[in-house]
């Protein structure tokens, strides 16, 4: 097993400021051993395969509760995977960014066990609240599954943001770190989502890429973090007030996307055969 684990990764896992028991688990079942194996793989993907750039990482607080709120980019969780990689590999001390896993992942074998052991709990408001109250770093994609279903030609777009994350930030008094993930659409250029086929496997859809298989291409990606946004309130405000705050966050994510586009297009040429621009 130890041959599978990168020494630097093991040292970083040891520096995570998470209370692990003597058995190597935290109260949510996050496993030190699984993190070591996972981040060893992620490190290689992050550094060599996707050549990720993390910009504005200093905006992520080194400790204390915070919520990274970003766009979906790519047909499945590549954006989440590499954002988790960024906070683990780039921050000093490293932080474990914990996502909210789609409910179907908890119902499927293997994914159920691994998502839990990597600290990604089922996407429930109770879980998000517990993690923030425990001063963890939470990752939220308010576009939901609608966001991962974006096609290649829609890769620079944002779909509607849900509003629950703002209420949660207000209830738990957590700062929101806006984030733009850029490049997921180039890595996994989806031309169509096969929903019926997906249902056979218990997932919402299977992305069909220009080359058929839903395998990611070795193309560069970047994660752009913005300044923390702090809203005041109780979380019990009316929808109109909350939607204004959601729009503010969405606009920040939009600005980060637009700001990073030129830099990204210098690194990655659009796939002309898909009519991308």
């Amino acid at each position: 097993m130890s041959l599978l684990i990168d020494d630097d990764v093991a040292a970083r896992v040891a520096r995570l400021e998470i209370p692990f028991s003597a058995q190597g688990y935290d109260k949510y079942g996050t496993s030190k051993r699984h993190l070591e194996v996972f981040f060893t793989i992620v490190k290689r993907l992050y550094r060599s395969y996707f050549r990720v750039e993390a910009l504005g990482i200093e905006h992520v607080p080194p400790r204390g509760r915070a919520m990274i709120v970003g766009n979906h980019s790519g047909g499945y969780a590549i954006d989440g995977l590499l954002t988790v990689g960024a906070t683990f590999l780039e921050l000093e001390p490293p932080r474990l960014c914990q996502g909210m896993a789609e409910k179907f992942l908890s119902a499927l074998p293997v994914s159920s066990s691994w998502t839990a052991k990597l600290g990604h709990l089922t996407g429930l408001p109770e879980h998000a609240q517990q993690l923030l109250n425990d001063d963890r770093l939470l990752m939220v994609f308010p576009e939901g599954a609608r966001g991962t279903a974006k096609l290649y030609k829609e890769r620079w777009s944002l779909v509607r943001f849900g509003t629950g994350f703002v209420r949660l930030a207000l209830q738990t008094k957590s700062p929101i770190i806006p984030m733009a993930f850029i490049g997921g659409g180039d890595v996994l250029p989806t031309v169509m989502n096969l929903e019926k086929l997906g249902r056979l496997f218990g997932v919402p859809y299977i992305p069909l890429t220009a080359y058929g298989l839903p395998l990611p291409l070795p193309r560069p990606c970047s994660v752009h973090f913005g300044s923390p946004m702090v809203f005041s309130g109780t979380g019990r405000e009316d929808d109109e007030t909350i939607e204004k705050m959601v729009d503010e966050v969405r606009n920040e994510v939009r600005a980060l996307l637009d700001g990073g586009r030129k830099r990204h297009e210098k690194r990655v040429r659009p796939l002309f055969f898909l009519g991308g621009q």
Partner: protein
Amino acid sequence: MRLLITGISSNLGRLVAKVALEQRHTVIGIDRRPWPDAPKAIEMHAVDLTKRAAEDVFRTRRPDAVVHLATVTHFSPDAEERYRINLGGTRIVFEYAERYEVQSCVFVGRHTFYGAAPDAPLYHKETDPPLAVATFPELADLVAADLFAASALWRTPKLKTVILRICYMLGSSRKGTLASFLEGRRVPMVFGFDPLFQVMHEEDGARAIVLAASASTGGDLKGVFNVAGPLPLPLSSVVKLAGRTALPLPEAALPLVFGRFGLPRLPAQSIEHLKHPVVVDDAAFRAATGFRHTWDETETLTAFRYA
């Protein structure tokens, strides 16, 4: 305090009785099963709780507090008998407790009340609904008994009622729901699933029960409380620390092998509990009583393993 324990001859009943005696309480026990080597200080009544003789114990002995443990938690094929003991017995205990002016009544329920499901939250609060009715219908009688007992909080406000939903208990007695599951050398798991299991040492469980009875009789404790010990562990670690070998099998194969090849006999619906966690938040009980567990997860499982 004069403490009456129903179901005293059960493993947990014996432990609760011993803790209560150590704390110099007077212990009276009801159970139709014998406890041949019971400490002499315990006043034993070999009667069926649902029969008239049990009422005589309440009337003549006038306990200050009752700990109601006389419930069946193993899966008897006789559903009617389970309902008679679990729901009928609970109804009678609360009826007698009110009639004979008992000060407090502690109902000992199970954390499985909350049920296991892929979309159920970790760290259930006491206010969470009993999903077990839907996910594990065999537990419906225990859920009904728990809810009936909790209704005493408004039905009989003079009686201080405490409902404890205790996580799995394990220890050197090697008895109980989880101990039966871990009995064999190989323990079945559902392939691809490794849910968190919350386990506390049986002695800590017994101490928590006596503490609840004392805090209720001598103080103002009443309400519904989750009770747990150390941090939960994935089932694979529980199996490993218990010195057993995990046997991950495809979900569809499990109902075919339960009760065969040295594997535990379990109803098919229990598979959900091998896939998804039932973990409770015990902060309210700790805050209200000052309870602290003394055995950590390794010590608890080691005690079970080497008993």
